[in-house]
């Protein structure tokens, strides 16, 4: 039984609720490369297509290096995530990358992988003992807030009537970092906006949640004529912009989002001034360049598990609506990334430099 068939059989036995992709080892590559196996656990939230793309990029980069590659989906489920860790260990992978939206089980994973002596890279959600690769969410928030603050300064001389922060408290500390960072960014440019003009609401990270909540907040501030909106992501900001449209106040409002999901394409809301791209689908470039490649070469870097001092820092990229029009969609970005020289990031390729 070949390594590949044995792996498939093992996974098929254990992963009943888990979608699996096994990319065979490339025929090319050195002997040591062929014996290196990278495990990748994608988040598995169906609404987040970038999570699937994270796996596609990792698979392609592993293939370029001639590694074996095992991909499992955590299905956004703690039990599946834990079971996937057992599969990786049973498969004797040499390193694991994980985007785990169920951080409560991270200590369990850490104990399992530590016992099996398998190094793990975590994307965006820190865990002691895991190499941290990810965005500095506070810096991302700050960058977006400053950009929106500059617009407010130019357009209204910072004389703002209302600043709405559309939160997504389900995201925990990430919400605090992003929306708090955006508020701090606005304050950096417009420090004299009075405290009573700052309002927070729960936008749930979805237009369908942020829209009715936004209507209510705007109705409760009927005299506000110059309004700024920030949020945990583009959807939560769009909901408030949509609410302003419905209440006949669209021309009074400007928003700046996070994650770049609704700032490209033909349907960009004209009041969404910009967003902050993280290029989530391309995280594997950072993880392989700074962590996995040295491990594969037998020179494992020191474990840096703190988002403040990460193993690899992903740079946030604030983009105005006009600039975003020149950025390709995710499929186009992935294609360009994989065609670029090794180690090139999407930030290098697509982030406007001015």
């Amino acid at each position: 039984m070949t390594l590949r068939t044995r792996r498939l059989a093992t996974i098929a036995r254990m992963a009943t609720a888990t979608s699996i992709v096994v990319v065979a080892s490339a025929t090319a590559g050195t002997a040591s490369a062929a014996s290196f196996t990278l495990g990748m656990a994608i988040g598995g939230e169906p609404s987040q297509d970038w999570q699937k793309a994270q796996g596609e990029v990792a698979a392609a980069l592993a293939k370029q290096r001639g590694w074996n590659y095992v991909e499992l989906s955590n299905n956004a489920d703690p039990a599946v995530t834990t079971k996937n860790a057992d599969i990786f260990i049973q498969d004797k992978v040499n390193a694991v990358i994980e985007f785990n939206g169920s951080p409560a089980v991270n200590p369990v994973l850490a104990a399992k992988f530590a016992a099996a002596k398998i190094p793990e890279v975590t994307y965006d959600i820190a865990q002691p003992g895991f190499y941290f690769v990810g965005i500095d969410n506070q810096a991302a928030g700050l960058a977006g807030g400053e950009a929106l603050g500059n617009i407010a300064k130019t357009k209204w001389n910072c004389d703002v009537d209302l600043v709405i922060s559309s939160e997504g408290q389900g995201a925990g500390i990430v919400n605090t970092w992003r929306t708090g960072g955006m508020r701090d960014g606005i304050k950096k440019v417009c420090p004299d906006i009075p405290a009573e003009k700052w309002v927070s609401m729960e936008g749930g990270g979805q237009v369908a949640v942020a829209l009715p909540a936004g209507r209510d907040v705007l109705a409760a501030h009927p005299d506000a004529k110059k309004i700024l909106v920030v949020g945990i992501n583009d959807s939560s900001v769009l909901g408030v912009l949509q609410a302003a449209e419905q209440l006949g106040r669209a021309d009074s409002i400007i928003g700046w989002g996070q994650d770049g999901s609704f700032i490209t394409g033909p349907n960009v809301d004209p009041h969404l001034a910009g967003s902050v791209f993280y290029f989530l689908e391309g995280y594997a470039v950072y993880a392989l360049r700074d962590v996995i490649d040295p491990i594969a070469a037998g020179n494992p870097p020191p474990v840096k598990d703190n988002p403040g001092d990460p193993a690899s820092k992903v740079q946030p990229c604030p983009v105005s609506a006009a600039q975003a029009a020149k950025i390709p969609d995710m499929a186009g970005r992935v294609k360009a990334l994989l065609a670029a020289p090794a180690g090139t990031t999407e930030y290098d390729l697509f982030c406007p430099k001015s």
Partner: protein
Amino acid sequence: MSDVATTRTMSAGRRELFFSNLPAGAGTASMVGGAWIVLVIASTLHRADFLSYQTLLAVTFTMAIVGVLAVAQALVGVSGAILDLSQPTVLTLSGAVICQLLSMNWPLPAVLFIGVVVGALWGLTNATIIVAGKLNPIIVTLATNFIGTATMFLIFQHIQAPITSPLVAWGQGNFFGLPNIWWPMLVLVLLVGYFLPRTRYGRHAIAVGGSRFAAQARGISLRKTRFAIFIIAGAISGLASIMFVASNGPFAPNAGTTFQLPVIAGVILAGVSLAGGRGNLWLILLSVGFLSTVPTSLVFFGFSSNWQAVFQGFILVVAVSLDGWRARRLLR
């Protein structure tokens, strides 16, 4: 019998006589309407600017889609099928079809028609499974809701109508000072509320909901009634999806779940019996109006939006308790 006991018996008798002489749903109407008025007065006393055109717009926008879905849900409830838990899926499924066809530049009337037909087909699917399998409608619609949402997630993550579409322009606009999407809700509630007890099919639905055995003894087909109700309820949900696409912007396949709680609460609060056979659909205007005012009012009182689900859940518990109380009173 003592004087006190006699007096109590007489007053109880007068009370029953009073209730029996009221038009159907008058008690519920006065209770819900009263609660609504109290809420508006309390909010206005707290902040005078609550009584503003902005508040009116916020409340009526919220009412529109919830009200239409509540009509569909009420039909299902009156007919004894208790609840259709697949409404969130039909809302986004039909909405996704509408968005896709609009993106392909199909003519608007055809798109709207297809949106309603998709809803009706969804209802037909539910009814077929329920009738053929003789299964509990709640379980079936819960399952089809999961299947539908999960399947949509396999196909798309977000979808929206082109922002240049006339449907989107209509969804953001007003007519006589109120949102365009509010008026179809009003017309629907009035029409369905009027025709349900006054047409043969409507009376059949009420009869089947009241007692399926008595209805069958009178020659009313449970199967036909169930098919008709689920198809009509699906078509009405399809209408709601048109309004949803017109007013919501981009949405994910699970976006419809946000409507589930207020719709069910609105139906029960309107006095539509979960046991079937009873309900004045006109009262949906009051119950949905009240429920749509609550979140706006909470913001004026300074509560965070996290409290909205708490209040709506609390109101649902009160409404279910009232429904049980009404049912027990009828049995006495």
